[in-house]
């Protein structure tokens, strides 16, 4: 556990030092979204990577968070932080309630059920025009602030979003190192065996589903307040799949992998712009190459690299001697 905490502290230090090394501007803006996507990917990874339960409806929780925050603050004039907390509680409750019937399903059926949930929410956001503004979106969401500090620049947003993202990662690291984390992995490997050993699999699955939904909802609130405009197209099925790609490319069951996946999938298209019209082809090829050669995700690549360096090290030491 101590090793995990040291690892986390190192990671957090790097993440918080990043803005100092770049000249601001555009990259910083993209890194804010990397932070939001990291929260979402970690949330999905808890569910998919640890408990082994797939969800194709993550974008729905993300969207609910964004819209609840947006509507409560803009239409009803609530304090953004209260709205955020209320949204998280409401979404948590919703996830808890629908979790019991949905998580009874397994494999393809679970994928279908979560997909269906995602589509229902997407349709509601699109069609409930009087409240959500419909397909043309909802604008004028206020920014966040604490006292006199307003998160109105990219740099301030970066620290806000990354503080939240790091807290979520710390929570996830803690969770996976705990008894609950072990129980979740047991469910992943064999639900029957876990139950025989006294793990309340049904409740635990619903709990992790709820936890994942609440984190996604918080990410949605942050999105709404940083972009100040929301429209349903951001929270469609397409985005749920993108999240799934982040988690898998990053490495299933690795918290840092989720962060890497989120960073890669958010940043890569930006760097690929130099390829002009061929960027999508190159993007697709890179994803194929990575899944072919690093099936365990980017994090596996880092581990192999690390192992390689360590193998080289004693050799050199030997030559020196």
């Amino acid at each position, binding site marked *: 556990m101590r090793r995990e905490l040291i690892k986390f502290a190192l990671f957090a230090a790097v993440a918080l030092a990043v803005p100092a090394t770049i000249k601001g501007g555009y990259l910083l803006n993209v890194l804010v*979204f990397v932070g939001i996507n990291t929260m979402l990917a970690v949330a999905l990874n808890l569910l998919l990577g640890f408990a082994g339960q797939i969800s194709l409806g993550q974008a729905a929780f993300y969207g609910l968070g964004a819209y609840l925050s947006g509507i409560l603050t803009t239409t009803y004039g609530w304090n953004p932080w209260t709205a955020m907390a209320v949204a998280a509680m409401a979404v948590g409750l919703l996830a808890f309630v629908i979790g019991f019937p949905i998580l009874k399903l397994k494999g393809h059926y679970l994928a279908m059920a979560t997909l269906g949930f995602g589509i229902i929410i997407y349709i509601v956001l699109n069609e409930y025009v009087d409240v959500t503004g419909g397909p043309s979106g909802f604008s004028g969401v206020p920014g966040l602030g604490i006292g006199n500090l307003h998160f109105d620049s990219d740099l301030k947003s970066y620290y806000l979003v990354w503080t939240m993202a790091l807290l979520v990662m710390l929570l996830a690291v803690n969770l996976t190192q705990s008894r609950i984390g072990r129980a979740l992995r047991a469910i992943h490997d064999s639900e029957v065996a876990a139950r025989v050993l006294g793990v309340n699999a049904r409740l635990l699955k619903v709990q992790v589903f709820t936890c994942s939904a609440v984190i996604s909802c918080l990410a949605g609130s942050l999105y709404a307040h940083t972009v100040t*405009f929301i429209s349903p197209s951001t929270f469609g099925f397409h985005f749920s799949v993108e999240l799934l790609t982040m988690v898998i490319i990053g490495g299933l069951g690795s918290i840092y992998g989720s962060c890497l996946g989120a960073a890669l999938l958010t940043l890569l298209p930006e760097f*690929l712009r130099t390829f002009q019209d061929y960027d999508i082809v190159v993007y697709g090829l890179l994803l194929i190459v990575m899944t072919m050669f690093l099936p365990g995700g980017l994090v596996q690549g880092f581990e192999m690299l690390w192992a390689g360096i360590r193998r080289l090290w004693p050799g050199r030491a030997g030559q020196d001697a």
Partner: protein
Amino acid sequence: MRRLAATWMVICFVLSAGAALAEPLRIGALFSVTGPAAFLGEPEKNTLEMLVKEINAKGGVKGQPVEAVIYDTTGDPTKAVQLATKLIKDDKVVAIIGPSTTGETMAVKPVTEKEQIPLVSCAAGIKITDPVNAWTFKTPANDHIAGEKILNYAVSKGQKNFALLTVSDGFGASGREQLKALLAKKGLALVADETFGPKDTDMTAQLTKIRAANPDAIICWGTNPGPAVVTRNVKQLGIKTPLYMSHGVASKKYIELAGVDAAEGVMLPAGKLAVFDKLPETDPQAKLLKEYDAAYRKAYGVEASTFGGYAYDAFQLIIGAVQKNGAGAEQLRSGLEQASKMVGVSGSFTMSSSDHNGLDLSAFEMVRITAGDWAIIQ
């Protein structure tokens, strides 16, 4: 291990590729060139590239070459916001053309307003310029202008009771809202108000209800393929009530989808580009439209579309403002606001501090479909 090294090498190579840029007058553009709104973004991008080539061949603006920095938003508002930031902070553009859709424009608007960069949107939503913000403009005509064109014509034919049939997406929802307001304003009656989904393939149920309400005319508001289905259903049900369509289907594709027979007699307000070869010589836009279509055909081998026209107008407005006032943010902004009777593809623009669209009823022509082609009426 070697495989791993190869993978990382590919990634590193890709990440390190950079682009060098020169020092001309830089105009940014955000178009959804790929994704669901590609039908908007592609002609916009093509048009802009063509215009930049043209103007540079003539020696640029006041001797300065023009460069367009075009990014593909894929129709995603989040990406549009990121790229708008990139255009402003990294590429240091003087103004931004686009984005292509209303959703993206509403997302980008707070950013450009905060950074005080003129934004000339290619999206139609009325929310973009109503209420007016000093830094935000748009080139497509407002939906209510098209609606008013229809109702003015209908009233001149003595029609008083109307049935609405609108698609449930952004375009349809906006049209429905505007038409209802217009009907109320003109003291006309709304006897049926039905909607259909963007992907529905049969509207018989809605049309049966509409027939029971016995309207003088039916107004259908949507983009293909829905309106084509409505047109065919109207024919199949033998409904003789006059049918109006929105400007959203003012392309030959609609007649093709609905079938020449079923589309016969359908009326709609069309942008002048659709009927440029039928305009009288005296129309101020006739010459420009002819030239635009010819140039576009020559460069890309297909006919010019109304959507490309939005980018055409945005570019000309910006160039006009730079020529008049200069390229500083405030100079450009006030220059845009001072545009007067500037003839473009979508119409003749006359902006003011309270009107950042600048188009009026003359932007559209009422047309009737006759033997698979448009015929100007009125």
